[in-house]
């Protein structure tokens, strides 16, 4: 076993397999979280039927999508129609390869990690374009044209914001960026006397557009284009697009967390006094609280099966809470915890936007992109460059 793990190819392969197997489940639960959070914003309950409080809904959805009839429109370009969702999912999941999930969990730490993510997300746009075009439907075509224009426009400010962060960190490696933030003792977002906030905000805005999320969800604007580029897709192919969309959200959020919010580092990583409260007490208390919440469900549910599910969840979260109290387990998981925690905050923000903002119009989207975001991002780059030159010597 020891020997096997020492082989440089084995741990990344195991992690890759875990990501590919587990991510669809995580994506399903992000969807459930989205539905629950939106429901809460909109004075309703969200899914409540499958399992207690709807916790098994993602499994039911996945099963339904897999069992659905596989429809390929007769007028479509079949090979490209087949290829598009595969391409989208493939690129979105590939980007996971360089995500620094924690100090020890990552598939690869390549010296051009950030470039790799940007490249993968650009190729992912191709999947949308091909999918919309090959379906040979007018709504799909308009959706994919919008997707193409949007991706091209918003990759520029996204790129500039990333370049600013890279300039600040001095490396293109994802782990290197985090190491630089640890060394400088400040999150990327607040570096250069707070001037890095400009690229941070721009990155979040452009990242929302890059992932086609509201208020920039024009390629799939359901009130105008029915479902945009995936109008003709159904069943498992549609699920793949869906998976790709959520994978893209996770990737862009991870990139943002890594570049600007310290990645898997805890807040204030250089203040030793906060080691215990933030790294042990906080996660243990958080999971204990979640377990407490679940334990209430055990008594509130009427069905025995549902009670068992809630009891199992209570036990699981208690176990996690206990694990954070153990030093050995804590050391293993704490990086993962902080990365996941920051990621969850970012994903929550994406959901929050969706519940709050109306959708931009096509020309306004271009307007915001080219007339505002790009000039501001260039300005932010130059400003940070000048400050860095004089402040760091």
């Amino acid at each position, binding site marked *: 076993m020891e020997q096997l793990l020492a082989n440089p190819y084995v741990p990344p392969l195991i992690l890759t397999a875990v990501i590919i197997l587990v991510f669809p489940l995580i994506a399903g639960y992000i969807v459930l979280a989205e539905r629950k959070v*939106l429901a809460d*914003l*909109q*004075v*309703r309950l969200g899914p409540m039927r499958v399992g207690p409080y709807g916790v098994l809904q993602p499994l039911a959805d996945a099963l339904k999508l897999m069992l659905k009839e596989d429809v390929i429109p007769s007028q479509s370009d079949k090979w490209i129609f087949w290829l598009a969702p595969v391409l989208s999912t493939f690129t979105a999941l590939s980007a996971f390869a360089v995500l620094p999930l924690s100090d020890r969990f990552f598939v690869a730490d390549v010296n051009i990690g950030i470039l790799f993510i940007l490249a993968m997300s650009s190729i992912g746009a191709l999947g949308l374009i091909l999918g919309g075009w090959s379906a040979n439907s*007018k*709504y799909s075509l*308009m959706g994919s044209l919008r997707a193409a224009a949007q991706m091209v426009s918003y990759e520029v400010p996204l790129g500039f914001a990333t370049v600013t962060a890279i300039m600040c960190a001095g490396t293109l490696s994802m782990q290197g960026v985090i190491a630089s933030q640890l060394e400088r003792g400040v999150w990327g977002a607040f570096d250069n006397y707070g001037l890095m906030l400009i690229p941070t905000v721009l990155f979040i805005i452009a990242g929302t557009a890059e992932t086609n999320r*509201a*208020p920039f*969800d*024009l390629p799939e*604007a*359901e*009130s*105008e*284009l*029915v479902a945009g580029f995936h109008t003709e897709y159904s069943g498992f192919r549609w699920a793949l697009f869906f998976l790709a969309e959520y994978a893209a959200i996770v990737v862009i959020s991870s990139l943002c967390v890594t570049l600007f919010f310290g990645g898997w580092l805890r807040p204030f990583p250089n203040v030793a006094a906060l080691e215990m409260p933030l790294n042990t007490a906080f996660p243990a208390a958080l999971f204990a609280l979640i377990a407490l919440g679940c334990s209430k469900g055990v008594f509130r549910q009427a069905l025995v099966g549902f009670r068992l599910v809630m009891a199992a969840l209570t036990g699981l979260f208690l176990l996690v809470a206990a694990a954070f109290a153990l030093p050995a387990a804590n050391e293993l998981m704490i990086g993962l915890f902080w990365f996941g925690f920051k990621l969850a905050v970012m994903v929550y923000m994406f959901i929050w936007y*969706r*519940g*709050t*903002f*109306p*959708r*931009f*119009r*096509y*020309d*306004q989207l271009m307007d915001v992109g080219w007339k505002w975001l790009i000039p501001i991002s260039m300005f932010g780059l130059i400003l940070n460059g000048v400050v860095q030159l004089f402040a760091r010597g």
Partner: protein
Amino acid sequence: MAETTLAPPEVQAETLLDSNELVLNMGPQHPSTHGVLRVILKLDGETVLGTDCVIGYLHRGVEKIAENRTFQQFAPYVDRMDYVAAVSNGLGYCMAVEKLLDVEVPPRAQAVRVILTELNRIASHLLWLGTHALDIGAITPVFLCFREREEVLKIFENYCGARLTTHAFRIGGLQYETYDTFEKECLDFCDLMEQKLKEYHDLLTGNRIWVRRTKGVGILNAADCKDYGVTGPLIRAAGVEWDLRKAQPYCGYENYDFDIPTAKTGDTFDRYMVRMEEMVQSCRIIRQAVDALPEGPIKGKVGKVIKPPPGEAYVSIEAPKGELGYYIVSDGSLNPYRVRVRPPSFVNLGALDKMCRGSLVADVVAIIGTIDIVLGEVDR
């Protein structure tokens, strides 16, 4: 392609000549054409060159059905036209038959009619607001609007047992006396509504994306409104102070103190503001009507058998969507000889092409939303 054969011949001929244009068939199954409206869009990229409405997918021949029903029997049918504002439809029809019969409606019945009609106006505007916001991409307001609309529907349910197609009024007055807590519930709802309107304003009015999506979109000026016969909030948003409740008061509206909200430019944002203000004014009217609710009988002198003398009557009221008119011809028999409805949705929809030309695809759904159509009324 196969799709172009769906277009009317003239649109088809034009598209075959110019390959830069795309004909997009929007509806009748489309998430934001508010039912079964079909709009054929002629596009250059995302710019709309022209639109063509195809209606009739919900045609039920309501006007023809009237000729085979007695006057009372037909009353529930009118609720199925503008089912979002069923009470207003019922009021218009009852008033038209009352005019034929020359019956006086007692003051208490009139006041209750005003209360219920204004409540229905708020319910209708709430549904418009929710769906309009949904069309523009704001998915939350629709749930908030339905939450408040539910309160109105509860009052209707308590009053007459039905929530949507209420058949609340009878020819000559009312069928039912109000229930015990009616006044209190109406006043409570007014308080609630004024409070919740602030919430909507917070969500939408101050939102820069909302303002950019609605300002300057689908402009219809006063002259165009008059040319197209457009009424209701659309003409008031263009700056014309035209409200039948003031212009030719009916049902005792002359006794109530309220303003006609107007705006200047006649764009989508103005229509939004006008409707929002109308809800406030409706609350004002409800308060006054509840406070001065007279005692007395609720039905005028109408026999069991309604047999109006030969003649004709036209009555129009200010429905939430505009002027709703009923033209009824009686030949002295039990059934109306002819009923003709002047539906505000249908007439207002006529201005769609004028409003859409030169705008973008996303604006088309915003404009359909802002006209506030109900296909049951358009197609009848």
